[in-house]
């Protein structure tokens, strides 16, 4: 499958345009929504130098200039990465977000490492015993899991950990971290711990990440069990499967070579969609329930401090995340399916 230059350039230009659209959308959300934009942008400060902060915000937003210039200035600010300091954290908005994004991504990757193999395997087993007892059980389990609220399961897991006497808060136990001299570089604690060869901390981090990961994995497992079964059943109806059976190809080759490869493009597409959907689930569960530092904590801080800048930053970063995931799924799909020529 040649990944033609043409597709890449078109895709990059398209992403660029969509990001501009996202930025313009968030800017208008500030301007149009009721209340003086400058006050909101300054995080409606009280106290002595409130008017000073509001004036600064007014200049930052360029409210005095004509609307078009305002928007262009804001877009330029976004692309140069400085839309002012976060009101809650007093450091540049994107810096705050990127450091937290890594924590949420780590959680998301772990939960999908659990969800994908489990979901796909159960889906295939369900398709192989189609309409048998196992199939009905797995499919109804899938439907239930796909409709279970993530934060509800998170709460139950959190409760059981508490009752078992564990201390499920945060990403790593500060006492153990300082004792063993653990200082993360990349932000992916698990990798940092491995790089430092610090096994005690690694185990501690793992024990803290497992329960939120399971809570988030519930949805993708449910979706994948049902989707894989549907895709496998469709694949087995294809003409070339009937022809291969007629030519004497063995059952295992047909299932684990032909059918599995045929369903991969469909699977990749849905996994991409679910992955982006789960980002929001992760944000809902990680801080409010498990108290882990991540995008979720930024959400709550932005709410409590009325930090518009952080909110806008979040919109942009999450939108970019979605676009990259979609592009990645398109490319993987094209790599697998020889017919697709990007």
């Amino acid at each position, binding site marked *: 499958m040649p990944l033609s230059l043409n597709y890449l350039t078109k895709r990059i230009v398209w992403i660029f345009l969509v990001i501009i659209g996202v930025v313009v959308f968030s800017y208008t959300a500030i301007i149009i929504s009721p209340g003086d934009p400058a006050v909101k942008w300054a995080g409606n400060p009280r106290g002595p130098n409130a008017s000073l902060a509001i004036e600064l915000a007014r200049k930052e937003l360029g409210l005095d200039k004509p609307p078009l210039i305002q928007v262009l200035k804001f877009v330029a600010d976004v692309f140069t990465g400085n839309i002012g300091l976060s009101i809650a954290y007093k450091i540049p908005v994107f810096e705050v977000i990127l450091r937290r994004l890594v924590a949420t991504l780590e959680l998301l990757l772990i939960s999908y490492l659990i969800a994908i193999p489990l979901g796909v395997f159960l889906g295939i087993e369900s398709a192989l015993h189609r309409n048998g007892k196992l199939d009905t059980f797995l499919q109804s389990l899938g439907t239930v899991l796909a409709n279970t609220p993530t934060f509800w399961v998170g709460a139950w897991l959190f409760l059981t950990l508490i009752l078992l006497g564990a201390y499920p808060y945060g990403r790593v136990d500060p006492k153990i971290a300082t004792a063993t001299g653990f200082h993360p570089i990349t932000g992916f604690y698990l990798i940092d711990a491995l790089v430092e060869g610090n096994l005690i901390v690694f185990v501690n981090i793992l024990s803290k990440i497992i329960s939120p990961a399971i809570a988030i994995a519930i949805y993708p497992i449910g979706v994948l069990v049902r989707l894989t079964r549907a895709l496998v059943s469709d694949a087995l109806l294809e003409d070339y499967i009937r022809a291969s059976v*007629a030519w*004497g190809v063995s059952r295992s080759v047909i299932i684990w070579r032909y059918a599995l490869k045929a369903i991969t493009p469909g699977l990749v597409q849905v996994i991409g969609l679910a992955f982006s959907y789960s980002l929001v689930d992760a944000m809902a569960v990680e801080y409010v329930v498990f108290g882990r530092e991540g995008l979720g904590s930024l959400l709550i801080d932005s709410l409590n401090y009325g930090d518009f800048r952080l909110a806008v930053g979040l919109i942009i970063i999450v939108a970019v995340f979605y676009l990259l995931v979609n592009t990645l799924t398109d490319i993987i799909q094209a790599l*697998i399916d020889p017919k697709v020529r990007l």
Partner: protein
Amino acid sequence: MVLAVRARNLRVGYVDEDENILWAVKGVSFEVNQGEVFCLVGESGCGKSTIGNTIIGILPPYAVTDGELHVFGKPVVRGNHRDYSGIRGRIVSYVPQNPGTSLNPYQTIGTQLYYVLNSVYGWDKKKSLEVAKKYLSLVELDPEETVDRYPHELSGGMQQRAAIAIALSTGAKIVVADEPTSALDAHLRLQLIKLLMKLKESESLTLVMITHDLVAAGKICDSVAVVYAGEILEKCSGSNVIVEPLHPYTQMLADAVPLLGFKRRLKSIPGEPPRPDEEVTGCVFAPRCHLAFEKCVEPPPHFKVYKGEVACWRYAGNAKQ
């Protein structure tokens, strides 16, 4: 003369969601001798493909069977029990109707051949590739070129020939071809028929052809069975299915086919073939037959006539029972 395929009152039906069975094949009996070109002719929906699929062994899972079917003496279908082990690929092989969708779009032709040969004979990649190249050149395809190509990179004609190469590579003795020419253009059709005939001789195959084209059947096949609404109305030799058709339906089919060169009045058959769910008593063709008389209310047996068999009461008199 060993019988390649023998069917005794074979019935095949499909179960729909409300559990009632629609019988697509309502009891057919026929025999195919080894090395013969046997042809099932009939219009769409008459059940000829279902019979073909039953021989090959690719009936859909919601199918129900009855009666018997033997391949080289081995009972393949007995009542609703079907056992194709050792038959699929090794003994009976399949030339699909439209090649475009019958080749795995995600694997190259070479890999597909390897999987077939590996499953049937357990050969490794090297040996399979050798045999594959032999068969690809047999079907006039350049082996080096085709082996690493994906199906969608081949033209229609090349795809069909690749499918035939795969079908023959298992060394099957019986090849069932389901409308092999209908998806091709005129000149490709010509080449394909010649290729099939050549392979039949060189590989001493038994060929079971399924087609709706009465004229093609007459010309190519040694013996022909005319199928209508799930029953075989007539069995006769290929040469005189057009010239001297026995059953009124075959006669009308022959008249309805436009022949090049001379313009005769096209006689069309009134009405439509019965739908599978319609219960039919007596001769299935009676409602549309212009020669129907009072006897046709009962289902006619197969009368042996000097040139073949026919299920029509008009032959009751001079047929030997």
